[in-house]
């Protein structure tokens, strides 16, 4: 590990989210000298995934943000001369708000339970933060003070609709010591109000828990099994991210699981949506007539452009209205609208609906019988895959590396350098920066949207089948028209994102209020809080919630470059994660920016096959095989000349 950083680069990239990482790979690949930095200690920014303890540390960090000290940062003022001016960058992250944590499972925790084998890069801060969060959950006397509306086990019972929302005033007492934080992370311990007899049983059983009962200490201990994504996305199997991964061969670093089921929520019930031809025919829920109607409609959607007469008259109407004219039962209309086109009743035009349906159908069967893939170990892997590619081509990586300011040449108005927190000046020609690093000043006129997120750890699937290893996506339509649909993604342990016998559930919608306010009603419909006692199997139809987190994330997608104040023309801005299911926005943005900066370079061409690289002898001239143009390592034309087959060819079913 060397310590001195070079000071001359072609491109400096600030932030390791998906678009920045794709750009880093593309730039290094085309021979640019790239410095890629992130002020955080992990890759991915708001695209990161965390182990359980990692997530708790992240929460702590969000909470402490407004409190960061200035120590140890050299002043940049002395480092620029009169022909230059500085544009300072933001010192703390402001993209996460309204974090709230609920712990439903028993806190039978010996004080020092720790994640097994967890790596903590920053031991002091990470450990202390875990402790604080734990202790917020632990002390008994606190329960009563802020959970006035709930029951503490052992006191009287009151079976009620538990609102999981103590007023902030209730929590102020124990938040006192953390007053400095603007953005409170509220940690609630929710005890369950059970029947008396159950209560007693709990007491008897405390030290030998029933099988499959999961305690908080188990979650902490197995914390490394979790890879909890801050964003919840999937890859469309014909989408631009998959295409890019394949084209650039970054796919060699990633593995995926098929999403196995598309679910729908209708009349209080979760059911599976048949979407492939085979599914439709095998469906037990659909009648013969419905099967025929659905097949007919889906077949039409696949090449709807060829049959303009079928929809032209309705082009301006809502898709939901159009479906009503197509002799489809309400059941089928619901499936098509919410689960296949994944749109809503009141916002989608016929044309957009048909297009979405077609996209969905085209993605079917490329890799499996739903159109979606999920990356093993979480979406947070994907930016890292691109970073690895960039590093392989010489990109230099520095995490925990803060940038204080851009140095701008007054005369040309172009950015010449950055000054980092060591006071080192690093020169480059182009600068790429993620939105959240820009100062409030630069963003003062920008209107941001918000994303509401919930992360749940549960004990069972929302739709049980013989196999407990399903990966499911469910769209819950809004109750009131005009509100947003909620996207629910349920991951099983085979995706390497949660421990055995648990499920990791992600909820996402675009925000109208705080995340909890936006999402709690859906959580309540699908789950029930964890009950300490063993309940009759029959009685327990809904999966139980073990742990829950809500937060809002800023959505900086779709912001026009010109909305930022005073940025030099060679500073390019990438946005944070958007609310969409796919990753098209990030890929598109990376490609567009790359082409703007390097109009004559190819975007992420395939690298040479490792087997084809021969290391150069000192005497030999490089010889490169046709497709790959590699600057340093040299290629032998490959024996079985791997031609670039058009991927599409393989996936027509």
């Amino acid at each position, binding site marked *: 590990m060397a310590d001195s950083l070079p000071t001359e680069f072609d491109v400096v990239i600030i932030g390791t989210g998906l678009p920045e990482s794709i750009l880093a790979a593309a730039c290094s690949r085309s021979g640019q000298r790239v410095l890629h930095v992130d002020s955080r200690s992990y890759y991915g920014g708001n695209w990161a995934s965390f182990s359980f303890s990692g997530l708790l540390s992240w929460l702590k960090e969000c909470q402490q943000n407004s409190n960061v000290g200035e120590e140890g940062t050299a002043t940049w003022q002395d480092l620029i001369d009169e022909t230059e001016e500085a544009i300072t960058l933001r010192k703390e992250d402001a993209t996460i708000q309204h974090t709230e944590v609920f712990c439903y499972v028993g806190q039978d925790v010996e004080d020092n339970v720790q994640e097994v084998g967890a790596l903590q890069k920053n031991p002091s801060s990470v450990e202390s933060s875990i402790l604080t969060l734990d202790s917020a959950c632990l002390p008994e006397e606190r329960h009563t003070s802020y959970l006035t509306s709930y029951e503490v086990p052992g006191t009287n019972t009151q079976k009620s609709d538990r609102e999981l929302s103590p007023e902030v005033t209730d929590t102020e007492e124990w938040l006192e010591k953390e007053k400095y934080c603007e953005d409170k992370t509220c940690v609630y311990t929710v005890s369950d109000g059970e029947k008396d007899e159950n209560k007693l049983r709990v007491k008897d059983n405390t030290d030998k828990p029933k099988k499959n009962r999961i305690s908080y200490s188990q979650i902490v201990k197995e914390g490394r099994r979790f890879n909890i994504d801050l964003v919840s996305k999937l890859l469309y199997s014909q989408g631009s991210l998959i295409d890019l991964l*394949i084209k650039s061969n970054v796919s060699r670093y990633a593995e*995926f699981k098929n999403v196995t089921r598309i679910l729908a929520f209708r009349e209080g019930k979760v059911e599976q949506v048949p979407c492939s031809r085979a599914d439709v025919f095998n469906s037990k829920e659909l009648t013969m007539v419905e099967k025929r109607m659905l097949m007919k409609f889906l077949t039409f959607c696949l090449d709807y452009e060829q049959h303009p007469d079928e929809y032209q008259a309705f082009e301006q109407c809502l898709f939901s209205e159009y479906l009503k004219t197509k002799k489809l039962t309400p059941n089928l209309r619901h499936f098509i609208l919410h689960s296949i086109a994944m749109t809503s009743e009141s916002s989608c035009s016929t044309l957009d609906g048909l297009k979405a349906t077609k996209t969905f159908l085209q993605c079917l069967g490329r890799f499996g019988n739903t159109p979606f893939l999920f990356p093993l170990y979480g979406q947070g892997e994907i930016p890292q895959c691109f970073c690895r590619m960039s590093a392989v081509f010489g990109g230099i990586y520095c995490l925990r590396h803060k940038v204080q300011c851009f140095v701008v040449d007054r005369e040309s108005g172009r950015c010449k350098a950055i000054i980092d927190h060591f006071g080192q000046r690093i020169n480059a020609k182009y600068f790429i920066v993620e939105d959240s690093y820009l100062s409030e000043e630069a963003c003062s006129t920008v209107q941001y949207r918000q994303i509401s997120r919930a992360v749940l750890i549960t004990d069972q699937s929302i739709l049980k089948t013989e196999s407990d290893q399903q990966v499911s996506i469910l769209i819950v339509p809004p109750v009131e028209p005009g509100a947003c649909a909620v996207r629910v993604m349920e991951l099983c342990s085979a995706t390497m994102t949660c421990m055995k016998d648990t499920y990791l559930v992600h909820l996402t919608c675009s925000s109208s209020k705080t995340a909890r306010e936006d999402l709690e009603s859906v959580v309540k419909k699908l789950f029930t809080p964890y009950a300490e006692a063993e309940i009759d199997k029959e009685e327990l139809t809904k999966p139980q919630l073990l742990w829950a987190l809500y937060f809002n994330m800023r959505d900086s997608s779709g912001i026009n470059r010109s909305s930022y104040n005073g940025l030099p023309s060679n500073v390019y801005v990438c946005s944070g994660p958007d609310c969409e299911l796919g990753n098209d926005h990030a890929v598109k943005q990376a490609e567009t920016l790359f082409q703007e900066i390097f109009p004559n370079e190819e975007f992420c061409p395939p690298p040479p096959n490792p087997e084809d690289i021969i290391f150069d002898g000192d005497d030999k001239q490089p010889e490169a095989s046709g497709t790959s143009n590699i*600057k*340093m390592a040299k290629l032998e034309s490959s024996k079985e000349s791997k031609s670039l087959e058009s991927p599409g060819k*393989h996936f027509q079913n």
Partner: protein
Amino acid sequence: MQAPHREHLYKLLVIGDLGVGKTSIIKRYVHQNFSSHYRATIGVDFALKVLHWDPETVVRLQLWDIAGQERFGNMTRVYYREAMGAFIVFDVTRPATFEAVAKWKNDLDSKLTLPNGKPVSVVLLANKCDQGKDVLLNNGLKMDQFCKEHGFVGWFETSAKENINIDEASRCLVKHILANECDLMESIEPDVVKPHLASPKVVSCSSCAKS
């Protein structure tokens, strides 16, 4: 010729300070050549070496060299993910690179475990032994002690230049991995999709895809 009965694919990491000879070792091992011309490694991701272990077993080794990011100690998880073993390399002519060995080992153990929670097998390589400056190593006993303390499965004095002990070191590592693997069988993941340029097949078991 009889087809071998078993094939193993192992990902191995090659770790160590700048310029200790990581790339040279891989190059010697995989491509049987050596260059004394140093240039920082760029564009090299991993190299493949096929071993005919015994008449029944073929072992494919994917040797992952480290890339620019490691210079500053910020490896991506992608690098570690699912590795089965590692070589940690130091340069006998530069004591500072030996001092870094324990740090690399700790770093590795904190980031990577086998699916059963045990640490992966690591072999220590004392490279450039052709230089005759191996002051550190004249005391073999001390090295044995060091390996024991730090959990290395073995150590070798190697030279990429003179091709000394590289095959031996690799055989030692593979032997330990094979021995470990018996109790790892449960870890095999069915149904994993690996989209690739050359062979965009679904690596999955179709019988599991019922719904």
